[in-house]
């Protein structure tokens, strides 16, 4: 298992929507960049990236379960290459459409699931003091553009050292 984390600002910061969008470009849909390059090619058995935030600050985190016989460095190199492409603005309109679909789906799913709705409202209230934050920020997600995503990738992930944990399985 590979886990890595990078410091990011809190939910109210203008870079929060680009960071969430970046995470979804990387691993959000089934055709997401890292799923295509790592999961569908059997180099990992699972992969996930997301922007986790609290009241004060947050972390951008990657988790990947590495497949047998694959080196950590190989997976890290693929992740870094994908981040560099995003930083250079190599993001298609289709990728942004897919992210917007994901965000719309999550909203609908929250609306029909009490646990999920409570989480969304609670996160907004606890982290920003605004119960409606999770709904209000949808407009900001809609305005995210490719240069903003690239800048966020550069500032918070490529230009920061981050912290990585490599978990090795016990020998059989």
């Amino acid at each position: 298992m590979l886990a890595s984390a990078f410091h990011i600002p809190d939910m109210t910061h203008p870079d929060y929507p680009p960071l969430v969008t970046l995470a979804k470009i990387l691993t959000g849909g089934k055709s997401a960049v890292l799923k295509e390059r790592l999961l569908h090619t059997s180099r990992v058995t699972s992969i996930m990236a997301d922007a986790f935030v609290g009241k004060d600050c947050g972390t951008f985190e990657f988790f990947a379960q590495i497949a047998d016989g694959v080196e950590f460095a190989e997976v890290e190199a693929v992740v870094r290459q994908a981040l560099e492409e995003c930083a250079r603005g190599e993001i298609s309109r289709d990728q942004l459409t897919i992210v917007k679909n994901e965000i719309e789906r999550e909203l609908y799913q929250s609306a029909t699931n009490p646990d999920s709705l409570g989480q969304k409202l609670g996160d907004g209230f606890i982290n920003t003091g605004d119960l409606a934050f999770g709904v209000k920020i949808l407009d900001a997600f809609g305005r995210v553009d490719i240069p903003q995503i690239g800048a966020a990738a550069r500032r918070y992930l490529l230009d920061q050292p981050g912290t990585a944990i490599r978990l090795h399985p016990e020998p059989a």
Partner: protein
Amino acid sequence: MNAAAPLFRDRIRDGALYYEHDPRVPMTALQLVFHGGGFQQEPTGLMGTARVAAKTLFRGTPAMTRQQILQQLDLLGATVDASVSETDFTISLSCFTRALDRVIALVASVVENASFPEEECALVIRQELNSLSAALQNPERVLTAAHEFVVYGAGTQGKIGSRAGLERLTRADVVRYFEGVRGAGVLFATAISDLPRADLERALAVFTRGRRADGFQLRSERPFLDTRATVIVDSPGATNDRLIWSQTGIAAADPRRFDLALILDALGSSEGTIFEVLRNKNGWCYGAYGYLVPATTRPGRIAYYADPAGENSHRLVPELLSILGRFPGDADFQVRLAGRNETFANRYAYQLEPKRKLTNAINEDRYGIPVLDREGYQRAIGAVTASTAAAVIREVFAVERLAMVYYGDAGRLTPLLAGLDGSRTPTVIESGLLIA
């Protein structure tokens, strides 16, 4: 196959649609269930074929590559997955209702023309092999699989998977398997949508019109053995031991099911006697529960779980056994049981959730479990009393009939178990057996 005759004759008809209207959001969730296409149809020696067939399904058609299919679905805002159970091969899709026609057209095309390249099949098999290795690193997964392996008779069913089966599997095997699935004797659908039922029936006709149904035919489920085996999956040096004990329960539509549910809640929930004694009072473990393995066409099972720290196993194991022998007369249990009627009565609201309503309707047709309205449910819960529960405990619970499965240090557990019950001789197995 040692499947016994089912307790209830499945009456799901080909082409049935189980539908719930949900106008809250403009979304549609569908499941296409190829009833009889589950892993019960896997050829001998090719365990894993059904899962590989499910995972390769969206990996290509003559006209589209895997990447094109997945990107198209993402662009339509759809998630589509295929999965397998013992009896069924299921395609689940969820999408914006505005895109439903296009999503269904794409899925229908894949189902009709699935033709993944050799290398996609090889990649999926490699993923499956990787996931077998990863599963052995998850103690809960190992324990659950070992328990199923034991109560299904230590054959293939219940194992996490089969490395040997996957290594033998070819693209031709997978294609042949999916042909059987596509022609399953019964194809039914479930839908939760803001669209009216008639619109969905029209949309789904593409899957049912002129369909051949001469492929896989539903077989009886494999029954659970009434075994009192004691099995330890060895994990040398483990700091925690884990256990699942279980015994045969009752049939799905047995009228005693309400008593049984309340008894197990009082005994084994996080507000139950077992949790109170083993965790809250003594701190010997993190989790300690009693629960039901649901009955289907076969009777369910009454099961218990605990995960004692290694140094506490010699205290927890005899105490859990003692609780299971003495709980019917235990004052703490009786107090907890008396409070269960109100708790369960308040849970009726869960039955109104759309997914739950669909499941209930299907369970009525599959297993003969009647769907109760609010009054019927409240009556059934209200009818559970200390005396009816005592009768059910006498009739159903039998501590001497427990199958006992452990995952932990066999060097620590073997002498402990030998001292506990002379009539039980533990069998020690390696976790690798569960993926062999």
